C-alpha cells in the first residue's frame, strides 16, 4: 500500500507523532499513580510526580540538626549530613522559615549565643557552639536542593507486611483471590455443555433459547441485587463467599454461553458428523473433541470472567461484605481508603497498584485471547 500511495509516506511522520502523543496521554494518569506509589508521603505532597523523574531543584522541608558532639579547640562541634543521598546538591539554605535561602553553600551563619553553622553543597554541615548543646534543641535548617530521582519500596512493604491498620491489604488480596478463582472456573463447565447443545444439537426451540441468551447479555445486574439477596437469605447462605460465587456464576453465564456457542458453531461440521457416524455418543464428542478444540474460546471467557470478578465492587458489596470486615475485597478496601485516607496518596497509590497488578499481568500475558473474545463476544 505504501508504495501505491505516495502521500502516505509524507504523512507518516504526522501519524507517528500523533499516535505517540495519544499513547502518552493514555499512559500519563497510570504512570502518575505508579510513580507516586514509589515516593514517600513528603515527596508526593511537596511536588508533582512528573518532577520526580529528573533531577529537580526543590525547597525541602525543614531538617533539625542532630549528631554526636565532639569537643575541640573551637568549641563543641557537631558534624553530619543533612541529606544523605548520592548526587544531592544544595544551592541555598537558611535557618528560618522567613529566609530559607539566606545563605549559599559554604557560607557561615552566625546564630544566637555565638553558635555558627555552615552547610556545604554536598549536604554536610558543621555546627560549632561555645558550650555543650546536650539537652537543648538544635536549630532547624531549610534547604533548597537539587536531588536526583529518589524512589522507595517502603510503601509496598508497609501496605503488605506491616501490622498497622493498613495491614488489611494482604487479607483483602487473599479474599479477592478466594472470590475470583471459583467464580471463574465454575461457570465454564455449565456454559460449555449448554453452548454445545445450542451449537450442535437439533431440538425445537433452539433459536428461541439463543435469542434468550442474547437478551440476558444486556440485563443490568442492578435488577438482581435485591431479589437475589432476599433469595440468599431465604435459603440460608446470607452474605458470604457462597453467595458471591453463585451470583458471579449466574451473571457470567450469558456471556460464557454466547462466546462458546459462537465459537463451537464455527468448528468444522465434518469432525462432529464423522464422530457421530463412528458411533461416539454426544457426551464423548463433547469431552473428547469439542472441549479441546474450544480451548481458545474457553480461555477468552476465563480471562473476561477473571478480570470482571477481580475488578468488581458492586456484587462483592451486596453479596459478600458483611459488617465483620473480614471479607473485604481489594476494590472495596480501596473505596474505604478513599473515604478515610483521601489525602494519603502514598497509601492510595500503593493499594491501587497492588490491586491493579494482577489483572495487568493477566492482560499482558493473555491479550491475544482477550482480543479474540472481544471480537467474538460483541453482539453483531
Amino acid at each position, binding site marked *: 500500500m505504501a508504495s*501505491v*500511495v505516495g502521500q*502516505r509516506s509524507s504523512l507518516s511522520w504526522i501519524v507517528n507523532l500523533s*499516535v*505517540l502523543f495519544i*499513547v502518552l496521554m*493514555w499512559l500519563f*494518569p*497510570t504512570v502518575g*499513580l505508579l510513580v*507516586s506509589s514509589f515516593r514517600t508521603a513528603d515527596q508526593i*505532597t511537596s*511536588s*508533582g*510526580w512528573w518532577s520526580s523523574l529528573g533531577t529537580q531543584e526543590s525547597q525541602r522541608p525543614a531538617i533539625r540538626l542532630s549528631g554526636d558532639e565532639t569537643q575541640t579547640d573551637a568549641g563543641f562541634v557537631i558534624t553530619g549530613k543533612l541529606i544523605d543521598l548520592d548526587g544531592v546538591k544544595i544551592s541555598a539554605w537558611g535557618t528560618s522559615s522567613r529566609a530559607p535561602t539566606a545563605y549559599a553553600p559554604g557560607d557561615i551563619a552566625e546564630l544566637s549565643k555565638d553558635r555558627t553553622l555552615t552547610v556545604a553543597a554536598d549536604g554536610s554541615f558543621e555546627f560549632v557552639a561555645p558550650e555543650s548543646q546536650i539537652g537543648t534543641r538544635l536549630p532547624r535548617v531549610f534547604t533548597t536542593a537539587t536531588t536526583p530521582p529518589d524512589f522507595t519500596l517502603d510503601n509496598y512493604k508497609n501496605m503488605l507486611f506491616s501490622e498497622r491498620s493498613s495491614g488489611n491489604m494482604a487479607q483483602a488480596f487473599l479474599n479477592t*483471590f*478466594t472470590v475470583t478463582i*471459583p467464580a471463574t*472456573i465454575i461457570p465454564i*463447565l*455449565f456454559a460449555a*455443555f*449448554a453452548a454445545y*447443545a*445450542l451449537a450442535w*444439537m437439533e431440538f425445537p426451540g433452539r433459536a428461541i433459547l*439463543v*435469542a434468550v*441468551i442474547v437478551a*440476558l447479555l444486556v440485563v*443490568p445486574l*442492578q*435488577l*438482581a*441485587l*435485591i*431479589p437475589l439477596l*432476599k433469595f440468599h437469605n431465604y435459603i440460608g447462605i446470607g452474605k458470604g*463467599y457462597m453467595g458471591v*460465587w453463585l*451470583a458471579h*456464576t*449466574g451473571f457470567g*453465564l*450469558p456471556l460464557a454461553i454466547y462466546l462458546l456457542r459462537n465459537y463451537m458453531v464455527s468448528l468444522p461440521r465434518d469432525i462432529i458428523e464423522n464422530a457421530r457416524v463412528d458411533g461416539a455418543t454426544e*457426551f464423548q464428542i463433547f469431552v473428547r473433541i469439542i472441549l479441546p478444540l474450544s480451548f481458545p474460546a474457553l480461555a477468552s471467557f476465563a480471562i473476561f470472567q477473571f*478480570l470482571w470478578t477481580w475488578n468488581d*465492587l458492586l456484587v462483592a458489596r451486596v453479596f459478600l461484605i458483611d459488617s465483620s470486615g473480614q*471479607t473485604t475485597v481489594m*476494590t472495596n478496601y480501596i*473505596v474505604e481508603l478513599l473515604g478515610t485516607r483521601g489525602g494519603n*496518596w502514598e497509601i492510595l*497509590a500503593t493499594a*491501587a497498584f497492588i*490491586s*491493579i497488578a494482577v489483572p495487568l499481568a493477566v492482560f499482558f500475558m493473555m491479550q491475544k485471547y482477550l*482480543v479474540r473474545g*472481544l471480537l467474538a463476544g460483541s*453482539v*453483531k
Partner: protein
Amino acid sequence: MSPVLQAFLTIVVGVGLCVGYFYSSNLVLDKFIFPARGPNAGRNINLANAIRPWLFLLPAFAALALYLAYPVIESLRLSLTDRDNGGVFVGLDNYRQMLAEPKFIEALKNNMLWLLVVPALSTAFGLLIAQLTDRLWWGSLAKSLIFMPMAISFVGASVIWKLVYDARPEGTEQIGALNALYTFFTDNPPEIWLTVPFWNNFLLMIVLVWIQTGFAMVILSAALRGIPEETVEAAIVDGANPVHIFFKIKIPQITSTIVVVWTTITITVLKVFDIVFAMTNGQWETQVLANYMFDKLFRANDWGVGSAAAMVIMFLVTPILIWNVINARREFR
C-alpha cells in the same frame, strides 16, 4: 474453615458435581430409561436424542432463570410494593415518589449526559486510533497500551484519575496534573475540580472514556482490517485523498460495527456505578441512576424505590435488548 480451603473445596465440589451430573444423566438416559437395544431400540435412540439437549441445557438455564430472569420479574413486583407496610401493593406510588425527588431527576439528567458523551467520544477516539495505527510498524504496541485500561478496575481507575484532579491549597505546589496545568497557564487559584457542578460530570466521564476507548479501538481496528482492499485501491486510483478514503470509503463499510460498539458502550454507561461511587458518591450534582439505586437500597433501605430505579435502568436498556435480539435472529437464520 479458612476461606481459601473453602474456595478450593468449592471448586472441586462444583466441578465434580457438574461433570458427575452430565456423565451420570447421560448414562441413565442411554442405559436405563431408553436403552438402545430390545424391540424398541430405534425409537429409544430417537427419544434419548430428543431429551439429551435438555439435559445439557438444564443446569445453565436453571441458573440463568434464577439469577437473571426471575430477578427482572421480582424487581418489577417489588417496585410496585411498599416494604414498610409488609409488602402491600401500592401501584405506581414508588415511581411517583421517585419522580418527585430532585436527586432522581438529577441522576436521570446526568445519565442522559453520560449516554450522549461517553459512547460518542469512546467510539470516535477508538476509530481514530484504529485508523492511525492501522499500518504503523509499532501499531500493535500502541494499541495494547491504549487497550490496557480495560484491565484496570473502575475503582483503580478512579484512584488514578483522582490524583490527576487533586487540588492543593493556593500557594503550594500542585500535585494534580490538571491543577498544575491550570495554575501554570492562568493566574487563577487552583480549583477543587470534582466539586464544580456540571463540569465535574465530564471529569467522571473522562474516566470511562479512557477505559472504553480501548474496547472500541480493538473492535473497529478488526473491522477496518476486514475492508476489502479493492475498494480502497479503486478510490486511490480515482485520486481520493486519505481523508476522503477514510470518511467516504471506509466508514460506510463498517457502520454496522460502529453501531455494535456504540450500543455496547451505551449499556456499560447505563450500569456505571463504581466510578461515581468511588469518586464523588453522587455529591456535587454528579448522581447517576445506578448509584442512586444503590443509595436507596442499602442506605435508605427503601426497596420499593430502589427497585423502581432499577426498573428505569432496565427500561432504558430494553430498546438495545430488542435490537440485539432482532439482529442476532437475523444472523442465525
